[in-house]
């Protein structure tokens, strides 16, 4: 990893559909060099996958997303790791994090509707060993995801001036 690799990562994080040619020109690398570096970042696991930011609300698929807070009793020798691994196997769990503060694990869970989310929590998550408490928060609206604003922003208009 060097400064060039970091630069490539920043470019790809913003737009992963640029060609090796385009990325090469911007970073003063030949397309072959750029491709080689990107390939190395992929095989080392730093680049996990190429994905798309979608405004699902706008797409209108009617899915429900929720943030679920879990209080968990940690396991001797393993802490939170084993239970986190178990939870992460569920397709419904999109994001899973260990947090500081008043609860331990935070889950982002999506489902077709509210019933599906609540069934998932009450049937699969809450009854698990070592889970002491759950709190489910339904997301009403997303304004910004991973640095991307999801609402319409007015373009700042450039006013005419003479220099």
């Amino acid at each position, binding site marked *: 990893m060097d400064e060039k690799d970091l*630069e490539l990562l*920043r*470019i790809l994080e913003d737009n992963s559909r640029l060609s090796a040619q*385009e990325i090469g*020109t*911007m*970073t*003063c690398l030949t397309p072959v060099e750029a491709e080689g570096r990107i390939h190395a970042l992929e095989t080392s696991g730093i680049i996990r996958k190429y994905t798309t930011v979608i405004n699902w609300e706008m797409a209108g698929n009617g899915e429900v997303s929720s943030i679920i807070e879990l209080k968990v009793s940690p396991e001797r020798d393993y802490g939170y790791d084993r239970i986190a691994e178990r939870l992460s196997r569920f397709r419904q769990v999109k994001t899973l994090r260990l947090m500081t503060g008043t609860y331990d694990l935070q889950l982002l869970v999506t489902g077709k509707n509210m019933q599906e989310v609540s069934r998932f929590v009450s049937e699969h998550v809450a009854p698990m060993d070592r889970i002491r408490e759950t709190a489910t928060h339904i997301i009403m609206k997303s304004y910004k995801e991973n640095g991307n604003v999801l609402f319409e922003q007015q373009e*700042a208009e*450039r006013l*005419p*001036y*003479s*220099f």
Partner: protein
Amino acid sequence: MNNRKQNASPIPSKQGETMQNFISERAQSIPPSGIRKFFDLALTMEDVISLGVGEPDFRTPWNICESSIYSIEQGVTSYTPNKGLPALREALSSYLKQHYNLAYDSNNEIIITSGVSEGLDIAIRAIVDPGDQVLIAQPSYVSYAPCVALAGGIPVPVECTESDKFKLNPDSLQEKITPKTKALMINFPNNPTGAVMNRKDLEAIADIVIDNDLLLITDEVYAELTYEESHIAAGTVSDLWERTITLNGFSKAYAMTGWRVGYLCAPKELCETVLKIHQYVMLCAPVMGQIGALEAIRSAEEDKNNMVNEYRLRRNMFVAGLNRIGLPTHVPEGAFYAFPSVKGTGLSDTEFAERLLKEQRVAVVPGSVFGSGGEFHLRCAYAVSRKQLTEALARMETFLNGL
């Protein structure tokens, strides 16, 4: 000669003509900005990609806006001390020391101005007597020569050439010095060429400035926008500090053009004189702008770095593109301008820019607007999105193919 008395008829025929008689010779001698009519035309056209304006396309980072809004809500809407808010001057003093090793005392050697434009004007007024010659490294920003002329001085261009990568050549400088020469004005990283002077380049200039007992005015508003090496402040080179006025501001680095906040730094004795003029003509820079500027220094470093990184990518992409389509362009090491040559096209820079606008709806500025050395070049600001730059390149290529 008093035109008004000679020309005024007892019954003025037209209002416009009467007014004309009142205008001072000095004001009349100033040419209007060479790009004005150009942009008036661009404004009437649809779907124009403008690489014409020297203004970041980014919005001001929100933390800066927010702190200014909050201060207004708190009722901070009054005048500030003439020199500017003490907290801002102190923050600037440490910032300059830390980033450029440039030492200016926050109490006596820094004045907050309404943009670099004001700083430039009051600096020149403080030093120029009628008939004094002021050397201007050109191509240069369009206001330098008129500001000198308005102060009664005589602007003398020193041409920076493409073969020197548009740096100021010590021999060209030496040639233009006369007993009437009072000062030298430079601007690196440069608008419009993007040229940068490193320490060695500046040392060669410093020797001449010191040997000839000149004052140096250095406009370093693009200091933060360098893409190869860190900026060298002229005030840190040789013994220049004691004869240097450093101008800088927040517009370009922090995308704060409309806030109108700049600063002027100079040794105490000179600063006192400049402050007198600032008091009379501006009183103080707007307080909301100063609050925003303070927040910029305190917490917008990362926003600034992100913008600089983006400019670097655009520069690499755009300059490679210009060279590819047949407009030779040196690699600008700073600012956000590319300065391609149109010599090979058989058109003058003005013809090229006019036809490019009319035929392909891309607005660029003819280089000759920026004085000697600018002829047969175009100033293209790459402070627009990569998508627009790609489209602009495609349109320019179509235009070139049609010649």
